[in-house]
């Protein structure tokens, strides 16, 4: 449905040219929910705006439903209004001079030829019903809450039944509680219409919970692409690992087949190592807080245990975050029930071997 090929985009800035997108490529299948996630400035929004036709790429090509819409080298650029897309903006961009109905009707009214009046009425109301705003069609756009504006923006993006739905950080302007609620609803609404969707966010929770596939971007490149489970469980770089969640990083050297000797005598771990790691190589072991168990007793070197002292327990309701000092490391562990352990106790950490991800010293 969508193919992005070697896409690059440079901007002129006062300090010269900046390359925001450095030749990325991906394909999105019909009906897929695809997310571009990354920190601010990673090029995700620029990529989305290129797909929308709001920015002109510097190089590469973009193809929507087998039509090349951008290919600078061949002089091809289809303006936004001739691309069959729907887009929800970060600010929602609900026009204040039009009411809810007219905002949603706009894409139909500017289409040539415009549908007849009854059809416009029907499609706008269908679209508003879908987002649960059917009762507010005649309300002034200036009298909507953030969540309502968000729904209207989605209804407006869907009303044309576009080939491609583009969502630019649609949840980032909502407060925390509403954001979680809308996240679920948005996913359900989009799933109901079954549109191919490109979603841009900086929030890893949104990316992981909503997408069929995610692309983690960093500095204008895609660092890793895959299903949310894959990318979370098997990050290909340390950047991806720490961007998608809290990651404990332990340094050490390869002590033998599937054995890691941690620095400072913190202990030994047995971790499945691939062929790329030779004995003696410096490595990093990344392990997530939920992949570590706290035990009252254990033994050095046995059963993947290392010794530590519980420095701090942060109670968060359903779970607790524990901070454990083990030699020079400060390790975060998430436990789901109240533990008996108290701050100051000497405890053992058991690291689940198959949940560890190992990188070379440079993070790759």
């Amino acid at each position, binding site marked *: 449905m969508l193919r992005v090929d070697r896409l690059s985009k440079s901007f002129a800035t006062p300090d010269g040219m900046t390359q925001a997108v450095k030749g990325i490529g991906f394909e999105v299948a019909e009906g897929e929910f695809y997310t571009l996630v990354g920190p601010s400035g990673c090029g995700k929004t620029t990529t989305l705006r290129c797909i929308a036709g709001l920015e002109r790429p510097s190089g590469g090509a973009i193809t929507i439903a087998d039509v090349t819409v951008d290919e600078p080298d061949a002089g091809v650029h289809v*303006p936004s*209004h001739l691309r069959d897309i729907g887009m929800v903006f970060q*600010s929602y961009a609900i*026009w204040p001079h039009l009411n809810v109905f007219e905002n949603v009707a*706009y894409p139909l009214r500017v289409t040539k030829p415009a549908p007849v009046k009854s059809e416009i009425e029907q499609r706008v109301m269908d679209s508003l019903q879908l987002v649960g705003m059917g009762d507010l069609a005649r309300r002034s756009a200036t009298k909507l809450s953030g969540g309502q504006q968000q729904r209207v923006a989605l209804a*407006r993006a869907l009303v044309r039944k576009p080939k491609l739905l583009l969502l630019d950080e649609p949840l980032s302007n909502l407060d925390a509680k509403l954001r979680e609620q809308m996240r679920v609803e948005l996913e359900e609404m989009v799933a109901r219409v079954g549109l191919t969707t490109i979603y841009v966010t900086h929030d890893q929770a949104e990316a992981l919970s909503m997408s069929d596939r995610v692309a983690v971007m960093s500095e204008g490149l895609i660092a890793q692409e895959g299903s949310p489970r894959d990318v979370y469980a098997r990050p290909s770089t340390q950047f991806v690992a720490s961007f998608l969640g809290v990651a404990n990083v332990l340094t050490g050297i390869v002590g033998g087949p599937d054995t890691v000797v941690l620095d400072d005598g913190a202990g030994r771990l047995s971790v499945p190592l691939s062929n790329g790691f030779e004995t003696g190589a410096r490595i990093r072991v990344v392990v997530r807080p939920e992949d570590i168990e706290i035990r009252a007793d254990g033994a050095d070197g046995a059963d993947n245990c290392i010794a530590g002292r519980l420095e701090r327990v942060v109670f968060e309701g359903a779970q607790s975050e524990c901070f454990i000092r083990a030699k020079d490391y400060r390790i975060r562990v998430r436990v789901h029930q109240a533990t008996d352990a108290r701050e100051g106790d000497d405890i053992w950490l058991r690291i689940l071997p198959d949940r560890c991800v190992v990188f070379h010293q440079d993070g790759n």
Partner: protein
Amino acid sequence: MAATAQAVRVHRTGDIGISGVLVLGAAVAAAVYFISAPLAMLLFSAFRGPEDLLPFETGAAWTLDNFAQVYGDTVLYSEIIPNTLVFVAGSVLVAFVIAFTLAWLIERTDLPGRNVFFTLIIFPIIVPTVILAIAWMFMFTPNSGWVNLAIRAAFGLERTAGPLNILSMPGLILAQGASLVPFMFLLLTAALKTMNPAFEEASATSGASPLTTFFKVTLPVLRPGILAPVILAALIALESFELPLIIGLPARINVFAIQIFFELNPDTDLPVYGRAAAVALPFLAAALGLLFLYNHLIRRAESYVTVTGKGYRPARYPLGRWKWPAIIFASTYIGLAAVIPAAVLVWVSLFGFNPPTVGSLGKVSFDAYSELLSDFRFYRAVGNTFLVAGLSAFIVTLVGALVSWVVVRSNMPGRKVLDFISFLSIGIPSVIAGLAMLLLYITLPIGVFGTVWVLVLAYCYRLAVTTRISRAGLMQLHQELEEASRVAGGQWLTTIRRVVLPLMAPSLVASFVLLFIIGFREFTLALILLSEENMVLSVILFRFFENTEMDKAAAVATLIVVFVVPVIFAARRFALPQEREG
């Protein structure tokens, strides 16, 4: 692939499309034409001669004679330049002292009746200055001015002239100063409003007295915000034409605006276009210099004082025993600049130009009005005034909005130059603009000269008014509001028509109203481009005054004031929403 072929075709005109290119192209061309064509004509004409020919008539050639004559003439150095400097500096000083005092009293003290004072102070701003000039002449001419007659009668003075004489440099300066007050007052109240009272409160809590605070904190903090209106007032005084013409000419006070007019309308000879253009050039340069100074100060003012946070209420000083002096000061100004002139005009229109006595009350006559209302020239002037002011305001608002879009939103090469050209128009004195338009349309064989259309074209040069306003409006619109329309399938022109212009409506209305008022008051351009056919109200008023048909002049003035009063009261509701509660 067919779709690709279409894409390539679209590429040539970019995202804007052919209709967009046409519309924007027309707007940009119009903007450039309205301002640069007359200026170029002015520049060329200064180097064309001989003087008895039009600059581009057959037989005319390039020459430096105009400059030699103008700048070899000692009158320029002994009279015109010193007079102009004294006149500008004096009237700006007078205007500033009065306007700042009034602005401070109304904005920062507990002066009673602030709303009424505010309305009455800004009232003259939408009345043509010619009306004020004529009313002041009725009041202050040395031998027959009513105020002089009243003073002589009251004190039993045995003289036939004075003691007040408006036909002098001090008289001219006071009159010009007073006429600048409303405009300067508006800008200064705005500056006072944006000043954060916490600056003053911090000074007070540090132990400074109110007077110390005023001089050590209030004035220095306000300095950029004060200097900018002062420079702008100097620009207006420099280009001011009505008062020098009506008061200065009989008093033989020659300033540059009058000199240009005199070269165009000499007592005996033919008009000398080349010489007028040569006189104009250095004054144009001076005016543009003031404009850049103003622009610089405005930018500093913006970086200097900003109010943040809401619910800001200015702290008002209690006037205490200064209450009555303050009321008398404000009332005196309003009396001399608005109320008495209006009363004098009404009286003259009904009783003729004889000093008012109780006996004359019986001799009320509506002849002036009935003559006026049976004169088709009066109706034509009314029609011309509304047509010219309305149409030029409409054209300039539309062109200005599109030009602002190009400057703010597009990446068209040369958009900075476009912005600069439109900004220049503030700095072009209207008498020079009038001269330039005269030269342009007398030369161009398009048949508009002498018609009402030449006025429409000429008035359109005031592009900066609208580009400033609509640019501010556009910058407040989130760009995503436009992009949402584009991705929804709206092509550029649709987006402009259905999203951008409706959302800019408040700025566009403000710009239209302001331009309409400027056009309605306009006198200089209309007088320089005058023909029998294209007379507007301000000019017909002046013609009656020139022909000493005082009652008719007063009747026209009265009708204008009667028309304008409801407008100012309607405008006040928009201008003063926050004052109503205060």
